[in-house]
């Protein structure tokens, strides 16, 4: 054996390879979304009345916040190769629970908030446990939760709002900072930072990508796959509870019919952001852009005075179109790199 390993020379780096990362599908997608958002902004500023105002920007932020907060955890769920469709009903359920606990049940607000957050984590852990240890598909588990959480909330309240007593903290959570910046949007940005950090800089975050990319290799590498699967659902569970608290603050009470369809906004934002439903690939930055893309379209359609029923048609077409463009671009990108 004359090939002594320590002395083997590595060939000089080829310049062609250098270029590849900048052209990766992920980056193409980010550039595309930024371009899309800029174009949307310009077109809507020109056509939609009041679109360019600061107040409207805050309004976009507020509607982005509910989707965005959950979408951070949702990105990790989808990167892990799973899905969580129970988040909308979970938000409604926890808004109701919080109001019941703080009001009629006399828990006091601080305890009610803690129980809500812990409860959200436990529901998520339960879903993840069924997935990880019994192999129940996460779609089925969360479909069950989707029905059960909404049903339980409606059963408890007869689908009537549960008012919260006047409370400074809840008003603050549901309101705005001095100057009009929505508190929920601030929460969204803080949590974005946290999740960006988790996804890139923690062994848990990287293990999520590993499990979604190749679960078998992850097992053979000693990653505790079951634990990872449980934890990603704990994430969506807790953040659904957070949005439930914010919702209760904004509506000054719980509402069993709140956040209807939120789960699909979350999935749409994640997918538009370039995260693969097959797992293993995705980015928080993409999801952030996806959240804003969808929030801006929703806002613009309202300001343009388009029939509310037809707005969903437009949203549907735009979401599928965005993912389609993304796929076509990434396929071309991968062909070039072969």
């Amino acid at each position, binding site marked *: *054996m004359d*090939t*002594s*390993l*320590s002395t*083997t020379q*590595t*060939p000089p*780096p*080829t310049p062609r*390879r*250098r270029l*590849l*990362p900048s052209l990766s599908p992920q980056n193409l997608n980010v550039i595309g979304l930024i371009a899309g958002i800029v174009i949307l902004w310009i077109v809507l500023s020109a056509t939609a009345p009041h679109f360019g105002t600061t107040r409207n920007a805050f309004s976009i932020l507020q509607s982005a916040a509910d989707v965005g907060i959950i979408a951070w955890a949702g990105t990790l769920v989808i990167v892990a190769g799973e899905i969580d469709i129970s988040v909308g009903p979970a938000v409604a359920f926890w808004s109701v629970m919080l109001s019941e606990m703080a009001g009629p049940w006399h828990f006091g607000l601080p305890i009610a908030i803690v129980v809500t957050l812990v409860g959200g984590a436990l529901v998520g852990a339960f879903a993840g446990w069924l997935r990880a240890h019994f192999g129940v598909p996460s779609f089925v588990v969360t479909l069950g939760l989707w029905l059960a959480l909404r049903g339980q909330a409606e059963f408890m309240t007869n689908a009537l709002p549960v008012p919260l007593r006047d409370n400074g903290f809840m008003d603050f959570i549901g309101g705005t900072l001095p100057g009009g910046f929505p508190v929920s949007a601030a929460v969204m940005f803080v949590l974005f930072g946290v999740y960006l950090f988790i996804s890139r*800089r*923690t*062994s*848990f975050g*990287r*293990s999520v*990508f*590993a499990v979604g*990319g*190749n679960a*078998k*290799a*992850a*097992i*053979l*590498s*000693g*990653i*505790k796959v079951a634990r990872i699967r449980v934890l990603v659902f704990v994430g969506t569970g807790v953040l659904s509870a957070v949005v439930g608290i914010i919702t209760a603050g904004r509506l000054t009470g719980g509402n069993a019919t709140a956040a209807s369809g939120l789960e699909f906004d979350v999935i749409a934002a994640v997918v538009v952001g370039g995260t693969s439903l097959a797992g*293993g*690939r995705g980015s928080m930055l993409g999801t952030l852009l996806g959240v804003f893309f969808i929030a801006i379209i929703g806002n613009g359609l309202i300001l343009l005075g388009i029939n509310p029923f037809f707005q969903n048609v437009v949203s549907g077409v735009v979401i599928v179109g965005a993912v389609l463009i993304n796929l076509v671009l990434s396929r071309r990108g991968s062909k070039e*790199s072969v």
Partner: protein
Amino acid sequence: MASPTTARNPWPVADVRAASKNYHNVRALIRTDFTVQPGEVRALLGKNGAGKSTMIRLLSGAEVPDAGEVRIDGSLLGSGGIEGARRLGVRTVYQELSLVGSMSIAENMFMGRWPTTRLGIDYKLMELETSKALARLGLTLDPNKAVGELGIADQQLVEIARALRDELKLLILDEPTSSLAAGEVDRVLDVVAQLSAEGVAVIYVSHRLNEIRRVASSASIMRDGEIVDTRSLDDLTTADVVQMMLGDAASESPPVDCAPSPDNPILLSVSGLRVEPKIKNIELELRGGEVVGIAGVLGSGRTEILTALAGVVKPNAGTITIDGQNIAGRGISVALGKGIGITPENRKEDGIFPFLGIDENIVMSDWQAVSSAGVLSMRGIDRAAESQIGRMSIKTDSSHAEIATLSGGNQQKAIIGRWLHADSRVLLLDEPTRGVDVEAKAQIYALVRELAAAGRSIVFVSSEIEELPAVCDRVYILRGGEFVQEVRAPDISSDSLLAAAMAEH
């Protein structure tokens, strides 16, 4: 070159004349002649890359030769593809069966061509026809049973029965018994014998000589894209087969001469290991700084042993002792915690994280070494990855590049590096040189020796038996679920290993 000893019919079922086939400048088949007569069972032998698969692909219509021609029962097999060959009466049963487990035997039998009446699919007819086809093979299976509920042997027989629905002239069986337990093998062999009696020609690819002798009348041995010889099995000894399969390669690789000191302590010992259905009773000792090979034919249970050692599968019996502690059946985290690392045989499916960088693919085995309190240190990851990349001379200009951009050999080195990063003491390498070019192979051999010299212990499994002498201090020969023999360097030679692994019981 080829001299079939069977009686010459004017009309061979399979007739390959001067066929050549190249893949990207690799000469897979070189002006080869090959004929099979009706009712003949012909064994086809040769090591990996000898040209067996190419021959099968030409006969089954999956590929067209670059030069020369393939005739089935006198008709030229043009570019009609697999469907064209099927119409001429050729069927191939691969190791990976093409059955849908959740559908019934009858539905599988008619897959894609289900008979219909005005009322939809004609289940009665399907059931009737299926029973007939199964009965012809002496099988008494319920046609409505889901295929997934059958054993693997029965599934294979269903696949053969499916081939019988058309007029079958040539049946190609590619390693048909490699995934079967010993008891099931007989059923497949019986069916082969019966088909042969009915006049169907069978090409039987296998390296289990005891099976071959039971069903086949003659054998063709391939090497380097050519048929070395075709002979009646009566005057073909195991030594002949081995000699023809290996050719001069047998003496190419010099055996290892730096056997570790026998004083090195025993690191891992295995006793009475049983993993149903293939592994019956394994005894193994592994010393520090030692490379131990396992030689066995495809399907002999090599992978089962490694996965049991790594805690991936739970053995049915036996102990695996490391540091005086029995870890058998205690799961992969215990095994990894004791310093065992495994590189799987399917690098692409089970080994790499294709979307992640080389760096993360390496540090995946131990995040703690590159993080504090769960927070990763990017510097730490870079340093750890660069050190493995340098040590293994992985050719890349960036440790952040996706691992999928690397060649197979470099991917394999990265996966081995994964366990060096985790500082594993025992490395279980399952087919580490599969799909790797010659230069990278030599580097992997050198790396394995270097690791052993540094005190790590390695279990090396390879279906290319001729590479075992170049890396192993000791080789166990695995046959019939047991280690039947143990050879030590410098007395390890490919031909004796191959002969022992293929030999009759």
